[in-house]
């Protein structure tokens, strides 16, 4: 279980949250309500207070890089540091077959990053995070820039990974996606996160 206790930072009121291992949690809320601030705090990317546990192991008891290997995060707009897509993967050849699972051709590994679209980068960032095999993955708007068909592919990839034991926290604007994917629902407004009874209407 991912257990969050009094997690707080500027722009975020103290959060208490329990996400069972193997579940998909969904967080919805208006723009600017603090969704990414929350995600960044969980992976310790910005100064914050409080504690987070994964399967009984406290975040503060391990180095931050080790924690981020367990609990990953894919922002809505990920960063790229090299010229070619493949250079961002530890082992691009073994990830090549995965590309079609997100609706990309196999030669996408050879593309220059500068010529990819927002939606392509979003899916490539998801694959890059999955390659590191985290236990928990926080996804910020993973399908925002995608058409219907591609969105369905990405969703089924996430569900397939969940069946293999991964835990997800999905941040989304889309109530239909929340209902399709989610097991537990939270809503965030003005930096305050509350547990919801069911999927957002």
């Amino acid at each position, binding site marked *: 279980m991912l257990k969050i206790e009094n997690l707080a930072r500027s*722009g975020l009121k103290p959060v208490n949250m329990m996400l069972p291992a193997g579940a998909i949690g969904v967080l919805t809320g208006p723009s600017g309500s603090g969704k990414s601030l929350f995600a960044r705090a969980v992976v310790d990317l910005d100064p914050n207070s409080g504690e987070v546990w994964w399967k009984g192991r406290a975040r503060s008891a391990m180095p931050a890089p080790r924690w981020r290997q367990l609990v990953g995060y894919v922002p809505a707009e990920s960063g*790229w540091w090299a010229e070619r897509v493949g250079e961002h993967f530890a082992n691009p050849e073994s990830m090549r077959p995965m590309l079609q699972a997100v609706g990309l051709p196999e030669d996408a590994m050879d593309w220059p990053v500068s010529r990819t679209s927002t939606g392509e980068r979003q899916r490539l960032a998801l694959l890059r995070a999955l390659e590191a095999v985290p236990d928990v993955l926080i996804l910020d708007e993973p399908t925002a820039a995608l058409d219907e068909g591609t969105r369905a592919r990405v969703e089924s990839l996430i569900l397939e990974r969940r069946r293999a034991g991964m835990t997800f926290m999905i941040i989304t604007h889309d109530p239909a996606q929340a209902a399709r994917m989610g097991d537990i629902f939270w809503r965030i407004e003005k930096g305050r996160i509350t547990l919801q009874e069911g999927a957002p209407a």
Partner: protein
Amino acid sequence: MNTQASYIALSYGDVAASALFLFLAAAFSLVLRLGLAGSIAIVAARMVVQLLAIGFVLRFIFESSSGWITLAYALVMTTFAAREVINRQDRPLSGLWRYGLGPGAMLVTGVVALLYTLAFLLQPDPWHAPRYALPLFGMILGNSMNGVALGLNAVTRAVIREKAAIEARLLLGRTRWQALRPFAAEALKTGMTPIMNAMAASGVISLPGMMTGQILAGVPPVEAVKYQLLIMFLIAGVVGLGVIAAIFATIWRLTDARHRLRPDRLAGMDDGH
């Protein structure tokens, strides 16, 4: 007077006569209304005053041969070099770090190399003889200042512009040092480029100014080359170490123990996000 070298002493008249061509250029500018005569006169006069002043100051320091006066002059040089490093930062670190980190990296590596050279290589008597210590220190500081300023700017620029890329590397479980390594490499290259170019070009395209000066003063060319090599090795080494120290100290300051990127520690970036 000049027993060991064929050194031709200049009179003030010689120096004045050497201004003939600059005077002609200024005269043409005046006649053709090119509007540069005034600037030429001002710059030339300023150069005369500055260099004469430094000549008399150095003569005073050399004649006194006092370690304290030499040290005081070295401190003045350091202050000017440090000010240059600080003022050339587009995005300086916030608070006192701005004054300590870059100039500190430049000064520590420069002083260590200077003391090493004086104590083990040149061995003047006394070891702090200003005739050796001050020109050496000046050349070391001048180059190190340039390299450190360039390297610091490159690394702070990367932290601002490549924030998303650096954080993507951190998010994949890399340490702060691993995450910033490509940007540190780029900054080192930027800081080292001028001295690398100077090394590559020396002797082929340009005769280094110091060597030229020694040859004009009657030093045999190969002896002058040896001095020039010693100086180049020292300068390049100090630039390399100074830039590396400045880059890694900046990375250390712009990240924290939880391996987070902290651009909020740059001046004017402390918006809390």
